[in-house]
């Protein structure tokens, strides 16, 4: 129905348009009869095969403009202005000037036009400077275009819809409803709105700026790689993914043959260390679909999850310091040989923890005192026990007289000090010692002379020595290097805490004022100086003037033992919390170095007499050996190098190594353990 209607309307229009140019067409027909013939012949052809003729015509019309090459070649220039005064209007294809046609005056041209019936069909082509006479067909096309129809009459714009593609539910075609009218008429509301805007603009309510601001184009470099730019680094985020390799690399599914390792190479990978082994071994697959799943995929993603789960969420500021550079520059242990390293000899025989040991000045014998109530003398060379004294009480300290011609041992029992002849001398010495250790009138003179004497000297019959009775328990004993004087310490608060004894006169005195509770006291190895250690301080006395010279602040909780360097200017102090302090008397009254080495109480610190060594023994069953070079140059600080940890003793009732002493001439260390063994560590 609708279709027919359209056809009708189109035919109506044709009629209308044709009627407009009736006069012209009648004229045309006469003149261009030859053309008509041609056209009609065309029409005949077209009637035979419409579609093909259509195509041909379209082709003709397309190519017709191309066929006629423009005579003028000057291009698209304003001809009127440029060539106004010129004789030519341009150049043809060969470069020759195209002369302007002679201008007809207006009157002549009017007359000519009045005479020529086809004049209305002529157009002046300014470009080529010629007049063109339009044909009848061209006029028709122009008329159709003007009237708003398709240029060619053969074109049917409303052809029937041919449903080329059959589909199943044909019953629901697309909507075939005609376009509603409202789509073809201007909107009333739009008009109102525009009018409103116009009114507001006029009233000045809306300002339309004249200047159109030029939009600033953000120009950026498309091709530069900005991963290294400062901006990117500042934000520290973006790291581009690596560019993928071109196909044919070793990780491709079908890599070139040269990437494929041979069986021998694969076997050799097996022999490599885990970290040296290549991560990926190229393999060939026939096609992409036969590539298996990545076998480590699950594990790696699990690891990745684990990493992310465990990774710290904050960015750590890490200072990049080589840990080696933080270590103090110490000489190699090899260069500091000899020092004790290995235990070769053991001295067995004691039945209880060995509390104390002492080596005789020649280095041939070793004396020891034990909880089992015995004091023994051992032969160092063979480990044979040479002599046993049944003292009956726990031997707390033992000390060999440093003078070689006085082989006397001082043994500290609970309240008493025993002075015994060691028996390691020839007959002359033996008789001398017997004289020395003999008290003619036991105790009488002493008691009479000084009623409040701190110690009484009594002849000890059983072991043929001297027994010195103290009023309180004795904690330490130390001989003067000449072997005549010795000191004992009674840990009490009064002035009688430190006693000085003279062996040759059998006389005791208490020259020191009270200073806290002393722990131990030692003589200077060569000068007339005396060191008293209280719980936290070490007091240095001058014996000739009997006055205090220095007071050393250790900073430890409780001093357990001290030892004086053979040079006399350096002291080591061991404490009950496992710390060891090195004092340089000429440097400061504070420790030059504090070494925290042991986990339990330090029981003994000791210097070697000749080698630059010192050692510490502790209840944690270890003994540490240190190297210590003391320079004669005052500007150079002592060099302390830890050398060796000596283990071997077994813990017994929470105690470990109870005493340690160096051999006087060899770089050997004796350690006495709570396991009732004395060990000798040799170099």
């Amino acid at each position, binding site marked *: 129905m609708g279709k027919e209607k359209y056809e009708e309307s189109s035919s109506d229009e044709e009629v209308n348009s044709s009627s407009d140019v009736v006069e012209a067409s009648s004229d045309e027909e006469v003149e261009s009869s030859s053309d008509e013939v041609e056209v009609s012949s065309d029409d005949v052809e077209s009637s035979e095969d419409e579609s093909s003729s259509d195509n041909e015509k379209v082709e003709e019309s397309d190519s017709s403009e191309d066929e006629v090459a423009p005579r003028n070649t000057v291009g698209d220039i304003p001809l009127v202005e440029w060539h106004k005064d010129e004789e030519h209007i341009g150049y043809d294809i060969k470069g020759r000037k195209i002369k302007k046609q002679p201008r007809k005056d207006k009157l002549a041209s009017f007359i000519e036009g009045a005479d020529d019936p086809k004049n209305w069909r002529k157009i002046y082509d300014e470009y080529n400077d010629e007049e063109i006479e339009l044909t009848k067909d061209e006029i028709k096309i122009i008329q159709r275009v003007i009237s708003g129809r398709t240029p060619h009459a053969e074109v049917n714009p409303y052809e029937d819809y041919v449903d080329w593609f059959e589909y199943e539910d044909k019953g629901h075609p697309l909507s075939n409803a005609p376009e509603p009218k409202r789509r073809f008429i201007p909107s009333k509301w739009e008009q109102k709105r525009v009018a409103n805007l116009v009114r507001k603009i006029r009233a000045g309510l809306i300002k339309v700026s004249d200047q159109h601001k030029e939009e600033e184009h953000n120009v950026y470099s498309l091709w530069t790689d900005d991963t290294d730019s400062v901006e990117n680094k500042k934000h520290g985020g973006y790291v581009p993914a690596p560019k993928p390799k071109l196909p044919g690399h070793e990780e491709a599914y079908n890599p070139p043959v040269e990437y494929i390792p041979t069986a021998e190479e694969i076997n050799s990978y097996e022999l490599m260390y885990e970290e040296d082994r290549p991560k990926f071994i190229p393999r060939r697959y026939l096609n992409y679909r036969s590539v298996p799943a990545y076998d480590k995929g699950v594990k790696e993603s699990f690891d990745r999850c684990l990493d992310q789960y465990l990774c710290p969420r904050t960015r750590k500021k890490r200072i990049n310091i080589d840990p080696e550079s933080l270590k103090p520059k110490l000489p190699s242990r090899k260069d500091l040989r000899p020092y004790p390293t*290995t235990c070769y000899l053991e001295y067995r025989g004691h039945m209880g923890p060995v509390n104390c040991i002492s080596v005789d000045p*020649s280095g041939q014998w070793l004396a020891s005192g034990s909880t089992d109530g015995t004091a023994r003398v051992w032969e160092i060379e063979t480990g*044979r026990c040479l002599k046993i004294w049944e003292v009956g009480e726990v031997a707390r300290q033992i000390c060999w007289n440093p003078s070689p011609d006085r082989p006397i041992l001082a043994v500290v029992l609970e309240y008493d000090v025993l002075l015994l002849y060691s028996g390691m001398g020839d007959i002359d010495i033996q008789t001398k010692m017997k004289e020395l250790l003999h008290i003619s009138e036991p105790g009488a003179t002493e008691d009479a002379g000084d009623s409040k004497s701190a110690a009484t000297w009594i002849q000890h019959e059983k072991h043929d020595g001297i027994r010195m009775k103290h009023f309180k328990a004795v904690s330490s004993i130390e001989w003067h290097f000449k072997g005549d004087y010795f000191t004992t310490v009674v840990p009490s608060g009064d002035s009688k805490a430190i006693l000085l004894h003279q062996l040759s006169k059998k006389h005791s005195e208490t020259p020191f004022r009270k200073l806290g509770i002393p722990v131990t006291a030692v003589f200077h190895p060569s000068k007339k100086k005396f060191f008293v250690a209280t719980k936290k301080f070490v007091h240095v006395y001058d014996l000739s003037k009997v006055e205090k010279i220095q007071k050393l602040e250790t900073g430890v909780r409780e001093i357990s033992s001290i030892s004086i360097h053979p040079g006399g200017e350096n002291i080591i102090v061991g404490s009950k919390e496992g710390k060891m302090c090195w004092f340089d008397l000429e440097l400061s009254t504070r420790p030059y170095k504090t070494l925290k080495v042991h986990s339990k109480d330090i029981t003994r610190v000791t210097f070697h007499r000749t080698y630059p060594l010192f050692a510490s023994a502790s209840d944690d069953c270890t003994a540490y050996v240190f190297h210590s070079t003391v320079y004669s140059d005052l500007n150079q600080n002592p060099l302390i190098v830890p050398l060796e940890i000596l283990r071997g003793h077994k813990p017994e009732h929470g105690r470990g190594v109870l005493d340690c002493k160096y051999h006087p*001439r*060899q770089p050997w260390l004796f350690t006495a353990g709570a396991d009732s063994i004395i060990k000798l560590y*040799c*170099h």
Partner: protein
Amino acid sequence: MEPNGSGSDASRQVQARFVTRLPPPLRVPPASMAVPSHLTRFGLSDIVNLLLKNSDPDHENQPFDFLIDGELVRMQLDEFLIAKGISAEKVLELEYVKAVAPRKQEDPRPHDDWVSAVDGSNSSFILTGCYDTFVRIWKSGDVSECTHVLEGHTGAITSAKFIDIRGVENEQNFHLVTGSKDRLLRLWKCDAAKRRGDPIRVGAYKILAGHTSSVQSVSVNPSREMICSGSWDCSIKLWDVKESEEDGDGTTISLKKRKVNSKTKESVDARLEGAATSTLVGHTQCVSVATWPDPDVLYSASWDHSVRQWDVPSGKETWTMVCGKALNCLDIGGEGSALVAAGGSDPVLRIWDPRKPGSLAPIFQYSSHSSWISACKWHPRSWFHLLSASYDGKVMLWDLRTAWPLAVMESHQDKVLCADWWKDDSVVSGGADSKLCITSGIEIQ
């Protein structure tokens, strides 16, 4: 192939020829033969024994040791060739010698205390010093028989030596010297006459006093006229015993008188006391050993870590070598009786060659022991063999031609304090387990 039984499955073989310097009954035909290369000395020993048995049916199997280019084979043959870089293409010359190994452990001779000194230079008697201050003489034989007990010292004996090593058969008397921790040396003479029953008690005929500390070692010079002693007082003293021996002959009867006197009185008859002819001073610590291998040259080792060579006529040091360890024992022997073997406060037995100029490094170091070495002795006749005793309770036999010990004798239960060769084929050793152990049957050509 060879009838060794393992030839069939051996993959590789080397051409070898067995040569020897042994007497003819132990010689095999010198033809070369193919030997499986995986054999050790035991397999090679089997081959030689089989070859010997082929020629002599009465041959008794015995172990042999094999030398290639003067080195004892102590691993598989192929490993040895690779280690030494010897071509396996050549015909290998395998020299075989009788294996040195202890074959018999004799009954230990019990003592009352630690045995600290032993001397085996007399072929029929052994001299031992003990910590119970007695010196004992043991007669060789299966029965442990103590023939003499020498009384007099008041300290542990550290060293005891025969001055005469002439056999008993042609000499009526022993002549001995002992050193002790009581700072004295004593000279003894005793009758070697065989007697049943209790051991004879003997007293010293002369006391050599002079050391101020315990005497650590005593040694007799080759002419048997002088002795030297090293002591804890850092000195070496030389004593003349020739004239005292003559004195001693005259005072044999008065000996017993003196002994009686000494019980009542501590002072010693001045006539019986001898003095040192000279003193060599130089060591800074205890002289643990002094030996006198050559009439003019004396060697000493000390705890001051040095070995010193002394020129006896001038009394001067001619050579000093510092080894870094306190030394306990020293012996001169080996090639040309010139090599110095010493051991001390570490488990390494070191051997130096003092003739080598410009170098004080040891030429051999043997470190199979695990504690201090207390004694080392060269074999009296062999240039290659020596023994060492250690506080780890072992006595080891060494051959200079290999780095492994030839034999380890673990007959002691405690420290071994002294050891010596005896009768060329036995090792006597005394230790802290109060035993004198005798290991015999060590055949050294």
